[in-house]
């Protein structure tokens, strides 16, 4: 056992760190530090910078633009990205549809979509959830009825993140109602400009607009846009949701937030906003959070190490998801507590103004991607045999 990174890993870390320092535009870094909302163009611009360096889609197969990195290198890359205040690329492009097309796409689909997806020439959104199908995703109903060389889609998707910006959607649609509910689901790609699609914004409690409802009214999608086989979309979706384990706990993000929390605390103390007793109490709370973050970091590294030694997939990813999201949420709670009444006004661009929206929006991380309760069901079944 050895806690230290190898000289090669440290050299890699330095290389990554130097790149982020030089390549990340100042205005983007400032927006990230101040918790400002990122525009579509911000994400596109940054992902193209990464892509030019060959680092936009590092965990894709090498043949499609990925990097032959070790699990430790993947972990270091993620951590450095967060510590450098660099935004992550579009998760829908990078983590979801890209790996799915690499694995299940036809040659034609790969040729048409992969390079464009890595460079965000196409902005993707994900059409999975429906009003009646959240955690119980397989109960989805939006129908795709075969009509010659096309499917005709009718129904509704919901919580479709950034659909307002999207060029294309990948989604799950019901092509058959006769069997088990996991059967008869088909994974389809569709151009968002197809007639019959209506996108309606959903405003969320942080005051932002990320989520949307998407309505389908006799939308015609070519049969060539099926990924995998008709009726086998559930297998494709499971592959997509099988998380990338090296960075799932988002330790880097939490560390970065912790250090910002500390500097905010120092600022407020210097301004005389915090009493000594409040500072003492907060220092104790921070120590509690830090201990758990350290424990989670080591747990993440144990998983990374096991992966490097050929340890197969297991529910450890679910543990990392649950504790990682709890940790991220705890950070936002502490920021909000620290802001106090100064955090009430949400105008302006600094941590105080962003404290409340940040807290409210981060409630989503324990809900999406399989709620933490669903993760616990998975852990109970696969690790405890319950």
């Amino acid at each position, binding site marked *: *056992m*050895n*806690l*230290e*990174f*190898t000289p090669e*890993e440290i050299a890699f870390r330095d290389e990554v760190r130097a790149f982020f320092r030089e390549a990340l535009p100042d205005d983007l870094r400032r927006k990230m530090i101040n918790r400002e909302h990122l525009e579509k163009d911000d994400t596109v611009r940054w992902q193209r910078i990464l892509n030019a360096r060959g680092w936009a889609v590092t965990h894709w197969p090498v043949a499609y633009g990925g990097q032959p990195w070790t699990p*430790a290198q993947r972990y270091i890359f993620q951590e450095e990205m967060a510590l450098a205040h660099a935004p992550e690329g579009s998760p829908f492009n990078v983590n979801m549809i890209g790996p799915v097309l690499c694995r299940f796409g036809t040659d034609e689909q790969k040729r048409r979509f992969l390079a464009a997806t890595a460079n965000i020439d196409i902005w993707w959104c994900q059409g999975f959830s429906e009003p009646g199908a959240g955690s119980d995703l397989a109960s989805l109903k939006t129908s795709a009825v075969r009509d010659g060389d096309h499917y005709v889609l009718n129904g509704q998707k919901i919580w479709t993140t950034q659909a307002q910006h999207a060029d294309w959607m990948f989604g799950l649609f019901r092509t058959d109602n006769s069997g088990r509910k996991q059967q008869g689901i088909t994974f389809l790609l569709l151009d968002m400009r197809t007639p019959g699609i209506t996108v309606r914004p959903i405003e969320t409690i942080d005051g932002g607009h990320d989520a949307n409802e998407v309505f389908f009214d006799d939308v015609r999608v070519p049969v060539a846009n099926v990924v995998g086989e008709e009726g086998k979309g559930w297998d494709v979706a499971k592959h997509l949701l099988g998380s990338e384990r090296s960075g799932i706990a988002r330790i880097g993000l939490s*560390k970065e937030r*912790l*250090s910002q929390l*500390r500097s905010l605390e120092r600022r407020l103390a210097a301004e005389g906003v915090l009493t000594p007793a409040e500072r*003492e109490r907060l*220092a*104790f709370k*921070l*120590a*509690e959070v*830090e*201990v*758990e*973050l*350290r*424990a*989670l*970091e*080591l*747990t993440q*590294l*144990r998983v*990374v*190490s*096991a992966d*490097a*030694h050929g340890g197969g997939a297991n529910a*450890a990813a679910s*543990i990392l998801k*649950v*504790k990682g999201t709890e940790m991220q949420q705890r950070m936002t709670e502490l920021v909000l507590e620290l802001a106090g009444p100064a955090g009430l006004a949400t105008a302006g661009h600094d941590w105080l103004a962003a404290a409340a929206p940040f807290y409210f929006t981060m409630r989503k991380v324990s809900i999406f991607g399989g709620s933490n*309760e669903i993760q*616990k*069901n998975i*852990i*109970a079944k696969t*690790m*405890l*045999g*319950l």
Partner: protein
Amino acid sequence: MDFELTDEQKMLSETVTRFVAETYDFLKREHALRSADGWSREAWAALAEMGLLGLPFAEEDGGFGGSGVEMMLIMEALGRGLMVEPYFATVVLAGGVLRHGASAAQRGAIVPGLIAGERILALAHDEAGQARHTLAARTSARPSGDGWIIDGAKIAVIHGRSADTLIVSATTGEGLGLFLVDAKADGVAIEAARGYDGVPVASVRLNGVAVGADALVGGAGGGAAILERSFDEARAALAAEAVGAMAETLDVTVDYLKTRQQFGVAIGSFQALQHRAVDMLMQVELSRSMAVLAALSLDGDEDQRRRNIAAAKAQIGKSGRMVGQDAVQMHGAIGITAEYKVGHAFKRLTAIDALLGDRDHHLTRLVELGGVYPAE
């Protein structure tokens, strides 16, 4: 960065774990608790036979020069069996003082007997009326001729009643000193008690106890530094022991959830209990991570060692309590009977939190150290 065990370490872990499972089941433990010593000389001899008592000592002292990782593996296995034998008291705690403070002559006189299982040692440091965890002592040692005269009283001396040799902390006028004291020396009075976790403890009175110059371990003011180093090693060992006790508690609880029927089904089919068991599992894994961190930090940078050990101790304090409480709750009334292993694990986990600074103590310490993560 690598968290894999070597083949030798895996073998050590499997061997000790199997030994505990095969020779130290819950009934054997109960039997040991009821004996005159309150622990099993037979089990102790077996640990000696396996070479485990010599593990952390240097090869020149007759030991194996084992690292923190090997100690972690042994302590986790002993923790699974809730072993009450003096491994922690003698090999880890008092042994730590010998390793980090004693002269070659002192080690030569004591360590071989310790490794052979023939000499029990106990560290007598805590005192009534002192801060709950401190490196200071009120017990005094004053020079007398070539030696020292020791006066004072100690509490919560783990395995003090069985000790052949006590290591006594006392203030010397130059700071804290540590003294090797024969338990049968004139002026030593030992009153045995039973810890709530089953581990025997004792109160020790020292009334004008005369010891020679060769009884002083390290310098007359060097005791605090030796203790600090030894305590960190001991905390790492306790973290591993806690992981073993927690893992065992979780296993027993999950088995119970699978077999216990209520409302016509196994109670493990209820989501409320499944999620609770998962919460336990997560605490075990977080604790295991911190036990590994603690074990790997012992020989590194001193500042990092202090932070990491304090963080580990704080984590296991919280996790141990959660795991113990949840296990008892899910067992229902069976969980609070003395006949059932889970309650005993709960008590040991509770005691581990209280030993060598509890969770609050170490969180406060972390604040003093500037946090878990050093400021960059």
